């Protein structure tokens, strides 16, 4: 069994990462999951969270804010709307995203208010995980 697989992290503007990975931790919409080589084919949407890629050189964390991941025979590709290496994420970025989510939550239609609330709390959780405590108003 191959012990690495192709991993691609793609944002709309460019390809961020393309590497051989041993395992990838993905913050799936229904819960976290880890993809390793020969994982069953799966497509899942992402919630805001930390994506960890383990390569031969070590692990790298990326903060992603939604998108989807495709796990196939040839490897894993993650299509994220915004993705940053965690140490590049600044307090200002988190605050801005949370402010946008809060606004969306307040204006949300009653049908989608739950998902807006979940998005907000996922963002907050992501912020605290990187050690950037979001300012909650």
């Amino acid at each position, binding site marked *: 069994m191959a012990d690495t697989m192709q991993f691609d992290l793609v944002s*709309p503007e460019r390809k961020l990462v393309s590497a051989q990975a041993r395992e990838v931790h993905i913050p799936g919409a229904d819960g976290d999951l880890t993809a390793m080589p020969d994982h069953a084919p799966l497509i*899942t949407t992402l919630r805001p969270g930390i994506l960890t890629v383990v390569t031969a050189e070590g692990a790298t964390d990326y903060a992603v804010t939604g998108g989807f991941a495709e796990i196939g025979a040839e490897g894993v590709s993650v299509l994220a709307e915004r993705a940053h290496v965690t140490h590049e994420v600044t307090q200002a970025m988190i605050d801005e995203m949370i402010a946008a989510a809060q606004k969306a939550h307040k204006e949300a239609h009653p049908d989608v208010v739950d998902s807006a609330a979940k998005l907000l709390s996922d963002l907050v959780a992501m912020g605290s995980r990187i050690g950037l405590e979001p300012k909650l108003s």
Partner: protein
Amino acid sequence: MPSLKDLKNRIASVKSTRKITKAMQMVAAAKLRRAQEAAEAARPYAERMTAVMSGLAASVGNSDSAPRLLAGTGSDQTHLLVVMTSERGLCGAFNSSIVRLARARVAALLSAGKTVKILTVGKKGREQLKRDYAKYLIGHVDLSEVKRIGYDNAHAIARDLLTRFDAGEFDVATIFYNRFQSVISQVPTELQVIPAAFEGGESASTLYDYEPSEEGILADLLPRGVATQVFTALLENGASEQGARMSAMDNATRNAGDMIDRLTIQYNRSRQAAITTELVEIIAGAEAL
């Protein structure tokens, strides 16, 4: 017959025009390279997105639970045309070719008794469309302040489209843009984004598990798909604009060069004519003595 001084001024002014067009051509060439790189870099995302969505659409598309973004509203009475043009002129037939295509489409839709709404991106197209179709214009996106088109711009346009769609303002949305083929050829293209249309909607070859559900993912992906398509169109348009400007300015530079040559010949001829006339006068004067 212009005087020697007139000709000289004329040559000087054409020369400075040539300098400007030459500089614009070089700026466009540099920008084109950047725009092409951006379009290139955005391609993997768009391709994956389309691949996954068409696979999903093929498996969910025919069921009753298909989202409205995919299945449509069940009517095609109101059409929204999103016409993407540039913010600046001096780029050859770039804007007029898009507007011509859009205009033909508007005329066809109107004669078929449909309602037409137009959303313009870029002020050049707006100016041209305002003449005939001012009453159909419902909005305008101004990108003149944007130096480099990012996903955020596309996202904003897509969100506007989706809000209007949810409010029932239109049934079908089509974007018009120039697809970049090469520096000398840009193809005006129309692309239907809502309801989403996929070419070759075959099922994905691998059988995927879906989390949460196929419908859930599709509902999440379709709005993103719209944004991606808008983004691709914006980037293609950006590259096309620079390409068109580059070849237009190349032509202008060459024309200016030809003009300078012609004027220089004319200048030299009239100078010689003046000298000859003077000589003849002097000789005639000498002989008369």
